[in-house]
């Protein structure tokens, strides 16, 4: 049988080797491909933490022999460290894949610039990674950051860069514009977890305690389950509302696109329709759209958009009526019941509406400029002109990012046939393909316009 010291040496070396491969991957970054500063911050941190863990492992075998009773527990630490490094490993390659040529950088910069204007969020940053899912996701700060910080605590290493969130986007959609407006929701998750969660939790606890008080008493498991559901659903709604307050209705329409909820326009309510179901990790889409509609009305966007002829608008309009068919398909404590739980959720939604609108005012303040400039931008787009600088009533104007994002979205919803008609080619293509190709051009123009907008804001002010 091997001596303990030999076994510990072997275990330490095996983990060292595993981490060394990860560190080398981070260190192997040169001039090309180019990464954003936040991506480099993330990759540099992984490299540094890896080196610190390796230093710890070099000293580890000598520390194990110090006392027989604690040796097994110390060896178990290697097992936990390995599991922790596996978490970081999962996000490394996707982050390396997301160089600046494979990201919609102008849109990301525009959203990030708007987020930085919100009080308290100046330091918020995002590292993007590619996901093989056709979905947008945010790695809860509890995963990467807490794992990295726990590793740091165990090996006496460096803490994770503050306010740095990790966001995933579909690897194939780097040149997309309309769908990528969903990134705003993911950025909101980072803001929520870093800055707002504590305040919102106080409200959730108060609403939940009122529910508990109506029962004859609940176990800790039941309360935690109920609290978990409410917390997850409320966080999703918070992020939706934050995104609308930050960039406007374009966010709602991008969510409708992703979820395929255009199906809800004009169709009759089906009881088994999943759009009406609250599930373990997400509130029902219909409930989310209802909150969107109410907020858009509150902010003043809806007066303009209600007249836009698009199924996306119909989906939002119908959400109020459809919300009577909502149901919960997640485990809730029997003592609370579905009706009480939904009521608690909607009460929190109403509270969130005031809370978020009070914190983020960017999109609401852009409405007057949108009303003035959007028809002109639409006219430019229908003639295939990138509207970075426009002439409104004889004066030169420079649309802001929020005006551009929403104007492009409006044109996307109702203006493509006009564009195709104006730029007709000799050999007409099948309608779907032509439509898709013009949307692609529109997306490229949108990214170009946002890039110009950023440049102009630095030059013109």
């Amino acid at each position: 049988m091997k001596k303990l010291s030999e076994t510990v040496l072997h275990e330490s070396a095996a983990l060292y080797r595993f981490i060394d491969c990860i560190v080398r991957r981070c260190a192997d970054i040169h001039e090309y491909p180019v990464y954003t500063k936040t991506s480099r911050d993330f990759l540099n941190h992984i490299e540094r933490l890896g080196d610190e863990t390796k230093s710890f492992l070099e000293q580890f075998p000598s520390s194990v022999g110090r006392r027989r009773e604690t040796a097994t527990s110390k060896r178990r630490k290697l097992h936990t460290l390995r599991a922790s490094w596996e978490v970081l490993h999962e996000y490394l390659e996707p982050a390396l894949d997301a160089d600046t040529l494979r990201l919609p950088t102008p849109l990301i910069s525009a959203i990030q610039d708007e987020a930085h204007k919100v009080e308290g969020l100046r330091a918020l940053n995002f590292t993007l990674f590619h996901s093989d899912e056709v979905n947008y996701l945010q790695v809860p700060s509890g995963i990467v950051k807490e794992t990295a910080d726990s590793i740091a605590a165990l090996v006496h290493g460096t803490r994770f860069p503050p306010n740095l969130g990790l966001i995933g986007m579909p690897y194939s959609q780097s040149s997309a514009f309309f769908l990528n407006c969903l990134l705003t929701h993911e950025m909101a998750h980072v803001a929520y977890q870093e800055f707002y969660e504590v305040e919102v939790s106080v409200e959730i606890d108060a609403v939940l305690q009122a529910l508990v008080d109506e029962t004859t008493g609940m176990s800790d498991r039941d309360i935690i389950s109920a609290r978990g559901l409410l917390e997850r659903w409320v966080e999703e709604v918070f992020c939706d509302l934050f995104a609308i307050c930050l960039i406007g209705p374009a966010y709602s329409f991008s969510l409708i696109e992703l979820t395929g909820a255009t199906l809800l326009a004009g169709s009759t309510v089906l009881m088994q329709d999943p759009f009406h179901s609250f599930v373990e990790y997400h509130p029902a889409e219909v409930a989310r759209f209802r909150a969107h509609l109410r907020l858009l009305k509150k902010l003043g966007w809806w007066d303009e958009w209600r007249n836009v002829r698009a199924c996306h608008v119909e989906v939002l309009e119908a959400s109020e009526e459809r919300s009577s068919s909502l149901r919960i398909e997640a485990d809730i404590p029997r003592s609370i019941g579905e009706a009480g739980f939904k009521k608690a959720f909607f009460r929190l939604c109403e509270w969130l509406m005031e809370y978020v609108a009070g914190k983020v005012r960017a999109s609401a303040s852009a409405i007057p400029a949108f009303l003035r400039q959007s028809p002109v931008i639409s006219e430019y787009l229908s003639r295939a002109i990138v509207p970075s600088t426009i002439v409104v009533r004889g004066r030169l104007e420079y649309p802001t990012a929020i005006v551009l994002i929403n104007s492009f979205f409006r044109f996307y919803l109702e203006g493509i046939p006009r564009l195709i008609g104006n730029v007709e080619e000799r050999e007409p293509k099948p309608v779907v393909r032509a439509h898709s190709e013009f949307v692609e051009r529109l997306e490229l123009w949108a990214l170009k316009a946002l890039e110009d907008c950023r440049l102009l804001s630095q030059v013109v002010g």
Partner: protein
Amino acid sequence: MTTGSRARYLIFALSIRKLTDALIEFVEEGRRAPNLNAQLKEVLASVKVTGRTTSVKALRQRGKSFGSYEGVVTIDDMRSADRESLANKLRSVIAAKTPREQKKNALQAIEFFDVLESRALYRYNHPAPRVRSVTA
């Protein structure tokens, strides 16, 4: 179980490991980490009442790790006799009169913590779908 929920078992395991490290340091070098007693009291509060009727506020007071669903489930997995025994060891580490007695109980508490850590890791290691996303 999503990766987000799964990873919280790992975070719980890591919280336990940090406590274990602090106890090992106390046993081997006699150094008591500044917040060790406060953390042990959080564990004690959880171990004593897990599975019982409680309030939302009392749950928050158990702290982020031990008041989490994953923390409660992992502690609830222990037999109630083991939970009682762990509670006694922790009480002793916090309040025993002689350092020798404190260290002896700390060593036994480390064994319990190892069990909790490995249970949490076991739950973490079960395969699962993906992390939180914009839609379900």
